[in-house]
């Protein structure tokens, strides 16, 4: 974590906050809302994949839990949407705690597989537990948020721009949490475990607790993203647990640069924009993604941010890529 990166993150947020003043195109606004949504997801996944160095393929489960919690709480219990977002985050964090307690004891490969199995189990349950989840039909007409003070409605979220700022607010919270984490001793502990598990234990770091803490924070953030998604799209079905969300966020983390704060944001921007604007190649889009994921992993393991850092250092005459961002 360096100053350059913090500045990059703040610049990203500042530009995002000002953009709607200049560009009013509705489609652009929609694209950016999705970019923010993906940025939250990618940042939350990056905590476990990038800092702890464990590949969790079950992260979509937390997105799904957040989305379903919000859908059920707002349509059946009338909870206001703005209250749903943190509540959905907390429920996802609770699920993260339970799943983490079970799975984080497992060795690398087992962890990858079992997190995938967990997401799959949840998807199948949501598909079959019709009394609670309405099965494959899912929830539609999920109410939009309302912001009012003393009966006076400030924002009713009838326009996209209001959603834009809501998404940006949740993203800002996410980035805040990730920045705090990245600057705290927790990141140091996580990176130590990733680099050398034996030595980390010998100096008193508990790998399990370290990973669990990070995993739960990630689940919380992904749950909030899911809740936002439910209220923005107004429809939630079992596919939120599906592998395609998982793949998309993994791509964003890999392409942007794992183990950094700015990387997932960059990845979400690049891929989010490509996803929405390249709709005309919709059909071959995922094939291209697959190839891209392979190429990035093989030839650009530090992601776009690694490329930036490397060029910068080469300019300064130091050809050395900081391994912290590995």
């Amino acid at each position, binding site marked *: 974590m360096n100053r350059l990166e913090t500045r990059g993150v703040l610049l990203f947020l500042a530009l995002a906050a000002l953009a709607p003043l200049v560009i009013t195109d509705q489609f652009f606004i929609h694209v950016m809302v999705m970019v923010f949504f993906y940025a939250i997801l990618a940042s939350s996944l990056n905590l476990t994949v990038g800092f702890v160095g464990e590949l969790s393929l079950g992260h979509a489960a937390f997105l799904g839990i957040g989305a379903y919690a919000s859908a059920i709480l707002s349509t059946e219990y009338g909870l206001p949407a703005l209250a749903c977002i943190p509540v959905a985050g907390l429920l996802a964090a609770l699920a993260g705690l339970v799943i983490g307690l079970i799975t984080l004891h497992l060795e690398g490969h087992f962890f990858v597989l079992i997190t995938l199995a967990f997401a799959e189990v949840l998807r199948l349950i949501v598909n079959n537990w019709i009394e609670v989840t309405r099965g494959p039909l899912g929830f539609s007409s999920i109410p939009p948020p309302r912001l009012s003070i003393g009966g006076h409605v400030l924002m009713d979220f009838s326009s996209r721009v209001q959603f834009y700022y809501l998404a940006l607010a949740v993203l800002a919270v996410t980035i805040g949490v990730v920045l705090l984490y990245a600057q705290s*001793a927790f990141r140091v502990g996580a990176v130590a475990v990733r680099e050398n598990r034996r*030595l980390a*234990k010998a*100096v*008193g770091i508990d790998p399990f607790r370290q990973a669990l803490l990070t995993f739960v924070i990630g689940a919380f953030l992904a749950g909030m993203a899911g809740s936002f998604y439910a209220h923005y799209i107004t429809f939630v079905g079992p596919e939120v647990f599906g592998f395609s969300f998982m793949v998309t966020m993994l791509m964003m983390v890999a392409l942007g640069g794992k183990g950094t704060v700015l990387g997932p944001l960059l990845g979400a921007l690049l891929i989010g924009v490509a996803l929405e604007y390249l709709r005309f190649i919709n059909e071959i889009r995922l094939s291209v993604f697959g190839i891209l994921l392979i190429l990035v992993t093989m030839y650009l393991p530090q992601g776009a941010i690694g490329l930036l850092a490397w060029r910068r250092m080469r300019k300064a005459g130091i050809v050395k890529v900081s391994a912290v961002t590995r």
Partner: protein
Amino acid sequence: MPALLAIDNVTRMFGGVVAARDIAFELQRGEIVSLIGPNGAGKTTLFNIITGFVKPSSGRVHFDGADITNLKPQQVAQRGIVRTFQITNVFSGLTVGENLRAAQYLRLTGPFWRTMLGLSDARDRQEAADRDAAELLRVVGLEHLRDETARNLAYGQLRLLEIAIGLAASPKILLLDEPAAGLNSEESARLVELLRWLCRERGITLLLVEHDMSVVMSVSDRIVVMNFGQKIAEGVPEVVKQDRRVIEAYLGASLDEDDGAANGMNADA
């Protein structure tokens, strides 16, 4: 005063092989003790048992009066017993400074919110830790390499970094597994100085596994000798090197302090 560390009749079998049999000895506060013996004598196994990486088949380990036999490695370290590894073990992807930061993890973390938010006490801890890390780097002579990635260090520098990592974890006892292996005579001399300084200035109790007899003889208060998983001798250096069983264990090489004998022992060990 009770011993700081007490190993009570520890035995460890791997399959049918006895790696350590009925080992018993004690470490007093502020002592430097060396564990010597030919390869395969069970020294590293004993290290693993003390630090919780391996559980003994029988016997107990007590630290500061408490039974630590069944603790996990990180719990043992949290109580103040920190080790280095025989094969160079650092966080190779991190810079030298970050290596120490990682080792200071325990004192940098507090309750969740305080740690996350970096509140004032966390910041104070941070500053104290930074000062301490700077001092450690100066002591081991790596301060000019603070921002260098560890994997770019020379071998001798890595061994020193390992010790600095161990120290950064604020140990009461530091267990060093062959710290002088691969060092040249100048570096070894520096190591001896460093070990004495640690003991004197920081009050750290040291347990070494070491093959380099010039290092062992010059720093140790006491020596424990192992062979074939058993303790065969224990005492001050002058006594141990006259012990007939010790000499036999080293294939009859005499244990005079001259270099020739020490090298002979090295070759056999």
